[in-house]
């Protein structure tokens, strides 16, 4: 286990450096290209060679200088601040989705039919087909109507704050992950409950509920964790849109801003190589951490997974 974590962690710097370079190169090469497609920006854009630029950029890392954003603010401070705002949303939404999703998934499995209940199937089909932005629009419209025709501003639907401001963005972010987790929980539980040991357990006097919630559930944690990891990644991608709609000052909103196409004279200068490099590095780091955490938790929970992958390759279980 320890060896596995160390090995994984050792690969991180290399992957992050590659991501950093790709982000840097992307902004370095393509921002002028995007600018040149603006018919009203004249003159040829001459680029200096990239590698000296990149080395001068990373050589400042030692002084904790990660470059600056388009408005001159240090990238590190800006991104740290924005990441905090975004991770608040993600953590709350993910935690609620996990609890609610697992609850719904368990609820949908009944002894009599041994199938996932129809209501969950319908719910998950609808939920997975509803884009986050659409749910957000619906909610905004609803609360707008309540504000105009009802008692007034019940829940704020724009802006930032660690209070009621959280409710709508969290709700929107929760929808797809919740139904996804519920769906995976339900279907894997149904499969698991058909295994002989469940029958044996019931015949030994365990109730169906205890078999479902204690034994069978433990063995389906791995696929549920996969679903959770998938949901977390989905949420990060959704953030770009959701934060924009709810005007939440986070990473997603920032990505949307810096990548927004130039819509006017000289507007193409928002994207700096340092910003893009930092953004991509942070994103990749988040994905790597999610991946690592999923594997670790799955191993902690499911005893069958405590096998060294590399040992398994050689056919030797630890």
């Amino acid at each position, binding site marked *: 286990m320890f060896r596995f974590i160390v090995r994984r962690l050792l690969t991180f710097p290399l992957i992050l450096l590659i991501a950093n370079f790709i982000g840097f190169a992307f902004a370095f090469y393509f921002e002028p290209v995007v600018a040149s497609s603006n018919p009203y920006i004249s003159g040829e854009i001459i680029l200096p060679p990239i590698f000296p630029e990149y080395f001068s950029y990373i050589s400042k890392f030692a002084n904790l200088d990660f470059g600056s954003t388009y408005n001159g603010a240090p990238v590190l401070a800006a991104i740290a601040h924005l990441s905090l705002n975004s991770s608040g949303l993600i953590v709350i939404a993910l935690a609620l989705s996990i609890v609610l999703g697992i609850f719904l998934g368990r609820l949908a499995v009944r002894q009599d039919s041994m199938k996932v209940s129809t209501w969950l199937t319908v719910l998950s089909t609808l939920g997975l087909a509803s884009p986050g*932005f659409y749910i957000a*629009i619906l909610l905004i*419209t609803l609360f707008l109507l309540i504000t105009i025709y009802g008692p007034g501003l019940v829940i704020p639907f724009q802006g930032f704050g660690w209070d009621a401001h959280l409710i709508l963005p969290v709700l929107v972010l929760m929808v797809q992950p919740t139904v996804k987790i519920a769906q995976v929980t339900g279907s894997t539980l149904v499969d698991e409950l058909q295994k002989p040991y469940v029958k044996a357990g019931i015949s030994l006097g365990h109730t169906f509920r205890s078999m479902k919630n204690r034994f069978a559930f433990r063995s389906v944690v791995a696929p549920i964790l996969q679903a959770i990891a998938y949901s977390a990644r989905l949420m990060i991608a959704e953030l770009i*849109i959701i934060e924009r709609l709810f005007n939440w000052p986070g990473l997603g909103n920032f990505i949307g801003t810096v990548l927004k196409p130039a819509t*006017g*004279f000289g507007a193409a200068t928002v994207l700096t190589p340092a910003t893009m490099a930092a953004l991509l590095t942070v*994103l990749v780091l988040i994905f790597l951490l999610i991946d690592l955490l999923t594997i670790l938790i799955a191993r902690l929970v499911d005893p069958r997974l405590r096998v060294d992958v590399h040992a398994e390759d050689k056919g030797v279980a630890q």
Partner: protein
Amino acid sequence: MSNLRQKLRHQNWTLIIGAVLVGFMILIAFIGPSLAPQDPMKENFALSVNGQIRTPPYPAFKIPGYLLGTDRWGRDLLSRILWGVRPTLIMVTAVAGFRLVLGIILGLFIGWAEGSRARRLDSVLSALLSIPVLIVALLGIYSIGVHKGLWAFIFGLGFTGWAETARMVSEQTRLVKRQTFVEAARALGAGERLILFNHILRQIMSLVWALLAFEISSTLLVAAELGFLGIYIGGGVWVEIFNFQVANVEGLPELGQMLASALVRIADPSAMLVIGSVIFTGILGFNLLGEGLRIELTQKEFGRRAGLLPQQINEWLDVHVYIQLRHWLERHGRTAGVVTFLIAATMGGWIYYQRNTYLFAKTDVVLQSQGDQLWSTELHDSYGTSYVPFSMETQPELKWQAQIPGGASGGPVVYADGTVVIAGRQNILMAFSPQGEIVWQVPLDATPIGTPALDAQGRIYVADVDGHVTAFDAQGKRLWNVEASSTRQATSGPIVSSSGMIYVTLIDAVSAISPDGVLIWRKTAADLFVDSPPRLSADESLVYLKDTALKAETGQIEKIQILPEGQILFTEPVFFTGADGRDYYRNGHAVMHWQKSETGLQVDPALTWEYASFVVFNPLYEGVLPNKLTWLFYTSEFSDGRMVWLDDQSRLIGNFEFPLMNSHIMAMGARGEAYLCGPTGLHIECVAALPGAPKALWTVSIDDGSRPIGGALVPGTLYVTSFDALSETGALYALSTKGDSQP
């Protein structure tokens, strides 16, 4: 009863609902545009509702004619949605098809691989699956460049989008390759490629429709999300609102792009809600359809060729169609190739013809200038067509130039023998030979205005600031002088009809003068200052001054209502005559042909282009060429010039940007080319711009720091006149092609 309930329960409702929703979307894609109540591109910057003037975005359900309201340019939302479904569906289907092909091919190989290679490929696949498509699509589309259009989207959305398909295909491949029939094929000596593509692929093909539906659904989702971020196909159109102020606005409707523009104010989400619902319907429909198909197909017995068609039909098709076709192709491959090529070439030719009909249209000149003079008035002829039936193909050079005392008052006029006549602001009328020698010069009573006019007999008419018109013969002998108005000055040069009647604009009025110098009528015809000459209708029964039509005989106003009053606010409508001899009306950026028939007024559908947000500036000149190509020329004191050509299907044939303010159109040539001149402050630059060509045919620079004020194109020579208000000087330039001289 219970039987029915049982039956209903066992129906594949997912498939049915999905099919209905998708069918609805496809139906809209097919017939939507014909159902649209309005032109999806028509802007409306002001509407008069119950006597109140309102500005866009107009709300839903409140304005008659705009059921779902409008976007911020005042374009009808319902019509835009009905039009927008088609391009969106085509785009997502193209992208989804690309992803599907890539996913199937890669999935087959990944599924076919064995051992450690399979594991490595699998981990690469799961790594790709874990990257959010939206972020990769953003980066991918940017690295290609949004302006590259559909290809940027296929690349950006196809970069990781195929991974899900590849995973499903590789799983299926793994299942199928363990079947006994694969082993049998191998035992019979079939190679890997044959097994993979002939046996395994055929098994998997039954999944294709389900996969395609899923792919379309997910592509639609990403396209919508990208639209939210302001990224959509083609990246919109760049327009100039003011000099050096440009905006990127949405052009022809497409759902993703409409979503981008819907987010104007969070306090009015109705547009966003409507467009979002349409997209949601599409995503849900395709998702349900895919899910339903998957259920339908997996319920069938595995190992059989599961397909949407019943087994018997599949077998019949196999025996009677596929196998026969394969045998035939094996024997007649070459013939089939040639036939396919011929069909493709014919279709390609047909499509080219359809898109470029104007190149093949007849170009008979219907309207001539009076007496076959080469250039008889400001806009070539009294109809104001600016059209000449020849071209100047090669770059001309300055052959001669002459200073005009006080600067030119307008452009020159040119006799059929090539003699050029021009009025100078220091009260002088001059005639030059084609070689540039002064033939004669005579004094004028007052400062001349605009371009003189020539009639069929060669008489010259000059209007002046005192509101008089003076006539001269071809030798410069003064014939008569008449007061067209005692209170108003002339604001344009005169025009002459084929019967010899002379018409001239006097601020807001038109005067008609007989050939022997008698004022016949004078009529106030405009609310504003007009500085362009009147135009004659094709049959010369009407005289147009902007959007007023006067009877040529009596000067009475002829009421011709082309559009309802409410639609002509700030659009500076004008009547004009095309070089094809028909009557037209321009309203804003839209041009429509009209004619009087026994049943009343007949107006054809308007032609227009993606002009979005030329709020302030309407075209300054407009015309229709003999081959039915409509042209609009935009220029002003504050903005660059732009020449736009439209064909008779309202397709944008050319959009030429002439980056000089205060530019001037000299003439329109036989190939539809525009001759434009504009001042840079140091030079006068002239270009010939062909419709559809990205670059000018030629460019020539004249060493003159003032601005062009008029011109004339005759065979072999382009005349340009200039005027500098500060120094009160100006010149006449003759630009000739090499070795060419006047006829």
